[in-house]
């Protein structure tokens, strides 16, 4: 691990001043960053520990929820209002990592965790445009069973690893950002970038900008929502494909729907096309299938991951069917 300075921020202004310095990085639970530093893939000169700030999870005036960026994954998953009003978020969090890691990991860190592409991690032996922009991508011609089918580029086919973010993408969440230049807000679906020709730039964050909170709007249809994760083993594994969904059915028709996919793209993938195709349609397997196919029309398989297209279709149809059945 490359030497670094460590400071613990005691207030937001203090954190932003220190985090704005060149070579500095914010530190949450460390479950991803510390590992990457040990591999020397990340080499920050300074770490600003922000785990002492922004813990609260509070109801907002309009009936939504404001989740502090330093709240642990466990704290969010077990919160009574999250379980009652946004069950897909609880389900997504407990589908990820292990209990020990969820106790350490923060919400802000979860948003900013990096891909588990094996070629990205192979610092010594593989080319990776995320690690060294312009050198090439060994995943594209390599073993790419776990890689992206949507939104990938000729420079990067990595996927975003988070489960929590997939639920947040479906929930119309907003990210609160702070910096010495002022605060701003960003829809969560605009926080992460597609790789394009700059896969090393993974988010829209400005240098020194700090995630301070996630805001969930009031969303009554989220009371009937869930998260399904398909992976190589029953627990403690990253998603091959996952689906976060909320569904409102009235008189047999889809009145409203939220749908997002994980494990398929460089960012949590909001299934806008499927949602559009579904609204107003009968809540039938036929309509669910048509919507899933609309979303996957642009999917491009690599050598080893073509199965993900069929898997994503089936998982979307199964989850929507489950939610439709639950309300019948």
């Amino acid at each position, binding site marked *: 691990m490359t030497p670094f300075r460590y400071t613990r921020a005691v207030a937001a202004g203090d954190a932003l001043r220190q985090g704005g310095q060149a070579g500095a990085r914010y530190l949450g639970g460390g479950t991803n960053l510390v*590992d990457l530093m040990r591999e020397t893939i990340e080499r920050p000169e300074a770490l600003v520990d922000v785990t002492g700030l922004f813990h609260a999870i509070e109801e907002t005036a309009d009936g939504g929820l404001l989740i502090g960026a330093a709240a642990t994954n466990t704290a969010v998953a*077990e919160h009574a209002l999250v379980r009652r009003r946004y*069950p897909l978020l609880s389900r997504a969090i*407990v589908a990820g990592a*292990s209990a*020990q890691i969820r106790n*350490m990991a923060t919400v802000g860190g979860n948003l900013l965790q990096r891909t588990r592409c094996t070629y990205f991690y192979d610092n010594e032996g593989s080319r990776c445009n995320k690690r060294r922009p312009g050198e090439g991508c060994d995943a594209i011609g390599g073993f790419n069973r776990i890689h992206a089918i949507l939104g990938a580029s000729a420079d990067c086919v990595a996927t975003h690893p988070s489960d929590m973010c997939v639920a947040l993408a479906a929930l119309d969440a907003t990210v609160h950002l702070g910096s010495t230049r002022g605060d701003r807000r960003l829809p969560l679906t605009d926080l992460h970038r597609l790789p394009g020709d700059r896969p090393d730039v993974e988010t829209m964050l400005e240098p020194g900008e700090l995630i301070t909170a996630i805001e969930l709007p009031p969303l009554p249809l989220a009371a009937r929502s869930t998260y399904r994760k398909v992976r190589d083993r029953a627990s403690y594994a990253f998603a091959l494909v996952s689906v976060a969904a909320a569904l409102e059915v009235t008189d047999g028709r889809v009145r409203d729907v939220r749908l997002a996919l994980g494990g398929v793209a460089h960012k949590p993938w909001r299934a806008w096309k499927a949602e559009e195709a579904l609204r107003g349609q009968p809540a039938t397997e036929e309509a669910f299938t048509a919507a899933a196919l609309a979303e996957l029309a642009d999917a491009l398989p690599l050598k080893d991951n073509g199965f993900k297209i069929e898997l994503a279709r089936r998982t979307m149809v199964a989850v929507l069917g489950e939610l439709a059945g639950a309300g019948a």
Partner: protein
Amino acid sequence: MIVNGITVSPPADPRVSLLDLLREELHLPGTKKGCNQGACGACTVLVDGERILSCLALAVQYEGREITTIEGLGAPGALHPLQAAFVEHDGFQCGYCTPGQICSAVAMVEEVRRGVPSHVTADLAAEELLLTPEELRERMSGNLCRCGAHNGIVAAITEFAEAGR
């Protein structure tokens, strides 16, 4: 920070993990280094009663916190009830994962009492959770056992959890 009731200073070098502080500087070798990358659970310790992975923890982040390792749970002649249950039920073969399994399970039982849901919890609104075999296995999935002593581990944890109800 306080480790097993004794006050210790955080390391001067911020690169030192909590795991290396415990083993190399405080000479508490009960906590084990398995993968050193957050995949196996052998390094599980308790921080203010919550289970975490000490290999992914920078020790400096835990200033002011209360750390409990396997040495703090029980000792020869004064075993923790879960240690005794592991002996009784053959919850190990080589024993390398055992301190992590035991620290993890002690906190896991508290999580169930507190109502923290898991991946296999059917009803998120349930006020009271039951530690079914399915729940136990899912909640302990962050602790690998290379010897395959899982049946004994499940039996030991089940006995401990039921005794505490």
